[in-house]
């Protein structure tokens, strides 16, 4: 009888394990879809993410004339908040700066400061928010990319 109960518990454990993984793939994190499409193409990231890029507009600032400075949305990424300020000159991103950075703890601050210059370089290179996340700083990268995307969106609308 005890052995039967053990088998039930094991079976239930497998079901619980699978259920959470399935739910995770279906629901995903609370990070908005637009952000995931931006940051999902990281090496080792699930390929399904890269295939579903919902943005129908051109990802970069191509076609925007004149010189603009635009600030992205303040994006909470769990360990802190980040917002970027983009300078766009005749359809090219010429600089990406941090407009706001607030972290929950000093370790996250340390990480953010280490990776933000790398993320800025990636944005400049990609000329869009489609950047790969930096290993060890996935959430920071996602938050950063989301703010970049929101700045580009604002630029096109306005």
């Amino acid at each position, binding site marked *: 009888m005890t052995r039967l109960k053990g088998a039930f*518990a094991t079976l239930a454990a497998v*079901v619980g394990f699978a*259920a*959470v*993984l399935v739910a*995770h793939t279906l629901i995903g994190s609370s990070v908005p879809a637009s952000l995931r499409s931006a940051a999902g193409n990281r090496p080792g990231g699930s390929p399904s993410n890269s295939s579903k890029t919902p943005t129908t507009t051109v990802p970069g600032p191509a076609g925007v004339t004149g010189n603009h400075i635009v600030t992205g949305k303040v994006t909470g990424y769990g360990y802190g908040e980040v917002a970027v300020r983009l300078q766009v000159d005749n359809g090219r991103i010429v600089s990406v700066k941090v407009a706001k950075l607030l972290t929950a*703890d000093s370790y996250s601050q340390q990480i953010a400061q280490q990776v933000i210059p790398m993320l800025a370089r990636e944005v400049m290179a990609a000329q869009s928010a489609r950047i790969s996340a930096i290993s060890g700083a996935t959430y920071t990268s996602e938050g950063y990319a989301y703010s970049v995307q929101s700045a580009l969106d604002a630029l096109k609308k306005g």
Partner: protein
Amino acid sequence: MASVTFERANDTSRRRGQPRQATAKRLSRPPRPGVVDLAVVLFGLGLGASVALALTAETAAGMKAPGGVAMFIGNLTGLAGTYLALVMILLVSRIPVVERTLGQDGLLAWHRRLAPWPISLIVAHAVFLTIGYAQAAHTGVMHELSTFISSFPGMAIAIAGFGILVVVAVLSIYSVRRRLRRETWWAIHLGMYLAFALAFAHEVVLGPSFVNHPLTQAVWSAAWAATAGVVLVYRFGLPIYRSLHHRLRVVELRPEGEGVTSVILEGRHLDRLPISGGQFFEWRFLKRGLWWQAHPYTVSARPRPPYLRLTVKAVGDHSAALARLEPGTRVAVEGPYGAFTAHARRHQRAALLAGGIGITAARSLLEDLPKRSQPVVVWRVASEAEAALAEEVRQLVSHLGGKLHLLAGSREEFPLEKVVGLVPDLATRDLYVSGPEGFVSGVVGLLRHSGVAEEAIHSEVYAL
């Protein structure tokens, strides 16, 4: 007080004019084996889900980063360890239906068996995450520890909680624990509640499976809140309510034999107290020097409203102190607990095997057994003088058409084989075994060896 009596001679039918002497009829509700099956499945689901939760926060890239592997192991062990700790807390949370079904000694056995797992997993969690964060920040372990305390939200209190956990865990190791007084250890052990309360904040604020995942955060928080609620309701609320409701106080102390005393209590509404023969309460005698410790003693008869009785053998400080109680002492109770009841029967007939003071559970159980059970009672006791309640047991057994074997003498004179040997047709009876640990484990071992089905063996161990 001479009118208080718990003997069978005071049958309700014969003393209709004195309703105060009638036996309370309200039995504890029956056990629910289905609840156990459900709990087992929920346990498995939760464990699988906790492990999976650690995986959801992981990426291949994260694993490759400095400290990534250590951090992953740290998160995994933290989630699994904390989940198992939650299960351990639930095992001793005194949920009535679980207590009735599995019995408290069964639950405590599982609690003890499980204990090394959450402790070692949580220790691993602390070690691996410190190493992992130190690797990620390219710093030393000691420096990382000070960073945790100074700048991570919720980490200072979590580390304090971890300290408590380690201290309590070390004191709970058997070789250390047996050097401590039971009450001292019990008080220290309550520190575990504090430890897990302190740890909670850092789990949901920093845990990568919870950050940015409001759903998992909500589920995890709800599970812990529910556990805290269950503990508060059943370990504190219900006992306080019952104690205030019944207002028990000591009315008489009656010597029953060598070193054996019956404590007779008077209380209100005892007719409405759901209790079965063979169950016990944790008793707290509200008197200087005793109020802070609760001890388990079996009820030695069904309540005779307004009276309730426990019978105790002086073997330790607490049980010896009971003989010196003064009438009027207020008594608080937790319970009744225990699965050693007539509900557990699988067969028509029964046999009760009692060692020494273990007779008290058998004595109150006899009141709940039907006539067709024809109980054979084998009672081994060191001497006739210690055979407390012998007259009551004899009357009850003869009323049920059963047979009593009172074996007064040494263990050599009456070895356990002889005790078991006195029960005819073992296979067709329920076997209720009560007494000191050595007696119970010895008899149960013999019964199993004789091929008695596990479901037919019911035991109650008297901790000394």
